């Protein structure tokens, strides 16, 4: 018995009066929606992913796209998605794969938090006229300063700082590996962070030679597959991040399909050409917190204690206690990745159902570290679904030192969040290794767009801070007085440690 086909996701149509048959749509669509027969452009809408490549390249605005052109009988429980997933699994018997971040309709806490501004009793500060300090140092900080008195009676500083990363803005680009994304995408991001005085992550994919010029702005990652890790790699990074988990798929490993492992990827990852790169769920040398502390120390030893070590975990229910455990190791920063974090590929059931939102995770970690009196000694980096400068400001006010963005930086490179990253056919040249597609990214132009984005958010953050009467980022950090919750329930307000609006 055949299950037949499910309705189209998207319906593409061409306004034939407008179309001048320039064929840009045919050339640009890597999914094969368009083909030419008898001088006519034919459309196979079933292949469409709504990546918008054709639409953005059409010089006459002749293409239109309609989502869900065929209705199911509406039902509040048995949504189209629920039905289609079942049909899909009935056919294949497999785990459903998905790309990008959590696609469920959970409430967005960021949108229920509002920021503060000065009126009368304190003057707002104009960042165009007064200094505004966004400089952020990530790394271990001393609990207190110690001094000695020299023979001459001068006070001498005894405390030595551990190495910290210096960021010109509390905004970094998260770990997206070469393999998951293309080299041109990575290069664009790398040039952008170098230009804007911040950092990006290499992901678990090693560091390609062409990124060496930007290595002082790159954080190298050691994940459970240990792909691309050798001493050369560790020493090139400005910092090292141990990846325990990822917000899009907490508790499971990663899988880069062999088709994406081209010769360059295989060299950089140090794995055979065309082989699947499978990162196991746990690190097989970390079965407990003390094992993690050992790995942190080993990496520190290997790099002569010159580099900050970050530990990235997915935001899960017990995130605060785990973060406190990490803070007690020699780790310099805890990275928390919320359940909206993006991914190249994750089982849909994980992406949509496992983990907690980053807003609650930041507040819980901040509280736990404060309760234990060690908040300032370790940095907290938040990621997973940060969309704009307001999310950035709110993350910091909830207690983060800095944030990682991922999806937002890809959107600046053209990504339209179609969510088909795992198929390796990204028409924007981002999540693909096909040379013709990769070449669609001009890294100079791409990096300028990403740098513009970072710059724009930085400007907006400065304005938000100035309006709140704050001229230094450390005074926004964890400052719940500058936040209020709007239509959040009492339990959530308590977790966030935020008063409701009007209070």
């Amino acid at each position, binding site marked *: 018995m055949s299950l037949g086909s499910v309705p189209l996701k998207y319906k593409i149509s061409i306004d034939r009066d407008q179309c001048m048959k320039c064929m840009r749509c045919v050339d640009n669509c890597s999914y094969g929606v368009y083909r030419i027969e008898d001088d006519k452009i034919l459309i196979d809408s079933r292949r469409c992913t709504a990546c918008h490549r054709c639409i953005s390249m059409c010089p006459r605005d002749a293409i239109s796209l309609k989502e869900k052109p065929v209705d199911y009988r509406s039902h509040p429980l048995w949504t189209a998605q629920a039905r289609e997933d079942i049909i899909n699994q009935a056919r294949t018997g497999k785990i459903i794969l998905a790309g990008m971040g959590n696609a469920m309709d959970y409430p967005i806490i960021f949108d229920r938090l509002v920021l503060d501004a000065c009126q009368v009793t304190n003057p707002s500060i104009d960042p165009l006229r007064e200094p505004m300090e966004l400089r952020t140092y990530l790394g271990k*900080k001393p609990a207190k300063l110690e*001094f000695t008195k020299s023979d001459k009676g001068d006070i001498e500083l005894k405390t030595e700082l551990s190495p910290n990363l210096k960021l010109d803005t509390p905004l970094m680009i998260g770990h997206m590996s070469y393999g998951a994304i293309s080299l041109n995408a990575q290069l664009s991001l790398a040039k952008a962070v170098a230009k804007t005085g911040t950092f990006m992550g290499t992901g678990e994919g090693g560091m390609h030679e062409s990124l060496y010029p930007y290595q002082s702005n790159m954080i190298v990652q050691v994940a459970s597959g240990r792909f691309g890790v050798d001493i050369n790699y560790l020493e090139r990074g400005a910092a090292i991040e141990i990846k325990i988990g990822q917000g899009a798929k907490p508790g499971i490993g990663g899988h880069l399909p062999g088709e994406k492992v081209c010769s360059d990827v295989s060299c950089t990852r140090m794995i055979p050409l065309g082989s699947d790169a499978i990162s196991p769920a746990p690190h097989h040398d970390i079965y407990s917190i003390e094992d993690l502390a050992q790995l942190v120390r080993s990496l520190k030893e290997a790099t002569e204690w010159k580099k900050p070590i970050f530990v990235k975990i997915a935001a899960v229910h017990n995130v605060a206690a785990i973060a406190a455990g990490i803070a007690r190791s020699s780790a310099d920063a805890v990275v928390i990745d919320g359940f909206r974090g993006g991914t190249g590929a994750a089982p849909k059931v994980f992406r949509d159902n496992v983990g907690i939102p980053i807003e609650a995770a930041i507040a819980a970690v901040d509280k736990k570290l404060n309760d234990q009196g060690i908040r300032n000694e370790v940095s907290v980096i938040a990621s997973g679904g940060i969309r704009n400068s307001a999310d950035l400001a709110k993350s910091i006010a909830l207690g983060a030192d800095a944030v990682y963005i991922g999806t937002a930086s890809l959107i600046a490179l053209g990504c339209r969040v179609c969510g088909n990253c795992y198929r390796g056919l990204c028409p924007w040249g981002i999540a693909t290794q096909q040379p013709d597609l990769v070449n669609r990214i001009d890294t100079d132009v791409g990096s300028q767009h990403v740098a513009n984005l970072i710059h724009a958010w930085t400007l907006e953050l400065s304005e938000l801070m100035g309006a709140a009467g704050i001229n230094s980022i450390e005074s926004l950090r964890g400052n719940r007085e500058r936040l209020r919750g709007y239509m959040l329930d009492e339990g959530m307000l308590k977790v966030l440690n935020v008063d409701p609006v009007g209070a």
Partner: protein
Amino acid sequence: MCGIIGVIDRTKARMDGSSIKKALSLMKERGSGEGAGYVAYGIYPDYPDCYAIHVFFDNLVEPKSKVDEVLQKWGRIVHQEEIPTYEQPCLKREHIPWRYFYRPYTEFIVGSNNPAEDIIKHLVMTVNSTIQGALIFSSGINLGVFKAAGWPEEVADFYRIEDYKGYIWLAHNRYPTNTPGWWGGAHPFNLLDWAVVHNGEITSYGTNRSYVESNGYKCTMSTDTEVVAYLFDLLGRRHGLPSEMIVEALAPQFWDEIDLLPEKEQKLKRTLRLTYGPALMNGPFAIVVATSKGIVGFTDRIKLRPLVVGENGSRLYISSEEAAIRVMDPEVKSIYMPRAGEPVVGRVVQ
């Protein structure tokens, strides 16, 4: 907007409270008649080694018996009495000001470098956060805070502060916005040897509060100034930083300026900022802090509140207004305005 003034006689010559009352009253425009206060150091020479604990009681029944009980558990009450007050026509008596002269039993706790002070701090936090109807608003040795909700001269007359003689005086005239004009909310704020008067609003309060609370302090007076006293106590008493260094931590130089300093100084300031980032105070403020060893005045990093300094021989004055200094000491020799964030320090000469 509030008015502040402080004076120190570096030779420890004691001044009575009449001139600071005049100075503070002159800055009437800076207040709203809802809070004024004074603190003086060296006023209790008869009890030179006792903690002078000033308490506002709502009544002398339940709250007082509870405070007596907790004090007696932790130490010996050497003497206690109601603080003498004199009815003023427009000042409504909200509390009964009381004082204890107290010696804690230092052998009761371990693991402390300064058990006496840690016990007093613990008592202040406990009483203020758990005993309804009692508020300890002054807890240092040989010093005392006198404050109430009223105009400067009324409050001064209520306590007859001209009857007290101290070598350091701080005074504050309040225009409350954030918190209602209740007696506990008036300045100065005091903890142990630290007293603070503050004009302004601390926009970093949330951050500063988490930081002091994570270090064992409890903010109970619902006003941002309290946190300044705790920051000074934490950095000064517990971490042992000299006052210039505390000011540098609370109102540090901008990174652009730090970057231009010679390497050694740069390193010191960078380390200081990184270590004490959560102690950095933002927002408009002018603050004068006192201990028995001296006073320090400073403003926020872009000087959004006024601060003027005057000197005359052994006396150093720090005030919101030059006129207030001049009315206190018509002979004042030099008057200048410190730069934003620059600490003005007056130390007792031993």
